[in-house]
């Protein structure tokens, strides 16, 4: 069943494959984000309660979902690095972490900008906000730990353990708004029931979300390529690649 996946576990194939993906991802991200942001910022209606400020939603929510999704992806890469000794997962972790940290930071900053006019405060120490901040710290920890090791594969394994331990935070972030009386409103689009959002706002959101996701995908592929090269610098194919580049 997994046989078709096998060739992709080869660094060279993975390098070529992600190389082919990047232009596609870039293109799709560009198209979706321009349509989505245009719809979201200019075309979609203002909210009945929040007026124009609701437009922050189109950036804030995709960034927040991706911040958690990318952490989860990183943890899965960590699991495969530890359990199945998958070398490519090492590169994947190092590729994902900074991108995830960036999206977490975006979610926090746009959240603060949204909270000031709506709630009346930039920041409040409630469960959702605090746990998202912890997520950012975890990303920083993962990046710092990975950089601290001289030996890259040893560092990647250490990072895998940390990433797996940090996964506990994800359900806390997601359910915090339901468990505790937080100021942050409940889930709108990531709950199982139909989204509690008018279609004229939901569609721009979906487009924006996929735009951001493809942007993240493209950034990660680019970083992944760099990591694969750095981790396989001894292999003949990397040397050929470097020679071809020189000419």
């Amino acid at each position, binding site marked *: 069943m997994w046989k078709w996946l096998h060739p992709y576990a080869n660094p060279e194939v993975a390098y070529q494959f992600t190389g082919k993906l990047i232009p596609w991802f870039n293109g799709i991200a560009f198209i979706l984000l321009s349509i989505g942001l245009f719809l979201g910022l200019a075309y979609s209606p203002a909210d009945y309660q929040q007026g124009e400020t609701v437009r922050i939603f189109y950036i804030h929510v995709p960034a927040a979902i991706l911040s958690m999704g990318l952490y989860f992806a990183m943890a899965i890469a960590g699991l495969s690095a530890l359990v199945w000794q998958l070398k490519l997962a090492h590169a994947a972790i190092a590729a994902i972490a900074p991108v995830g940290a960036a999206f977490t930071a975006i979610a926090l900053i746009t959240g603060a900008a949204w909270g000031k006019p709506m709630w009346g405060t930039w920041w409040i120490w409630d469960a959702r906000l605090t746990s998202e901040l*912890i997520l950012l710290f975890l990303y920083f920890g993962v990046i*710092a730990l990975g950089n*601290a090791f001289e*030996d890259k594969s*040893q560092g990647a394994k*250490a990072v895998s353990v940390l990433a*797996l*331990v940090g996964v506990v935070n994800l359900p806390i972030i997601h359910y915090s708004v339901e468990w505790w009386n937080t100021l942050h409103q409940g889930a709108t689009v990531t709950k199982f029931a139909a989204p509690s959002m008018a279609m004229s706002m939901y569609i721009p959101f979906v487009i924006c979300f996929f735009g951001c996701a493809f942007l993240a995908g493209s950034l990660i592929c680019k970083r992944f390529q760099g990591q694969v090269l750095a981790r396989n610098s001894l292999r003949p194919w990397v040397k050929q690649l470097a020679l071809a580049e020189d000419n």
Partner: protein
Amino acid sequence: MNPALSYRQAFNTILKRDLKIALRHRDDIVNPLLFFIIVITLFAISVGAMPNVLMTIAPGVIWVAALLSTLLSLERLFKNDYQDGSLEQLLLSPCPVFILVLAKIVAHWLVTSLPLILLAPLLAMMMNLHPDGYLALFLTLLLGTPILSLLGAIGVALTVALKKGGVLLSLLILPLYIPVLILATAAVEAATMNSPYQGHLAIIAALFFASLITAPFAVGAALKVSTN
């Protein structure tokens, strides 16, 4: 062929050795305690003129001080063993790594956190803590400090092979400590306001069991990576 060592025997052997070493190396016990006392004294001095302010920040300050002094003592957990080669010997012993790790963590807790818990009421007095908060403080420290030792051990195990692990350790560990800190201070605050805090305590206990069953395995994996 001798029968393999039972898990309990292995646990006891390591626990005894670590306690013996700690008792011969008293600085390791005394220094974090002194640190704990000094941090709290500093707070008490800096806001000393306002007993009410002191009273409101007391739970938070005591807990943060406890957390920092645990962090300070954590490095000792594996560093010496790593440097003199006995960590390798432990990893190669015939019993599973998580038993050894658990024994070392228990020893660490007995040596550093237990004296701290016993000393806490005195410092709570210095911080002018509301009398209703004493029991809650004691209970949260009793349930919460083992979590600090367990989670901290993961961070130490990850950084033990690094030369400059100290600052990195706090970057890795402190975010994981935040939930315990929030719950514990909220519990003590609730107690001083005479409202029930068994909900907080139950969640801290849940965190304790969760870290008890996961941390030893994570530490084992981390140690294997570090000695690689």
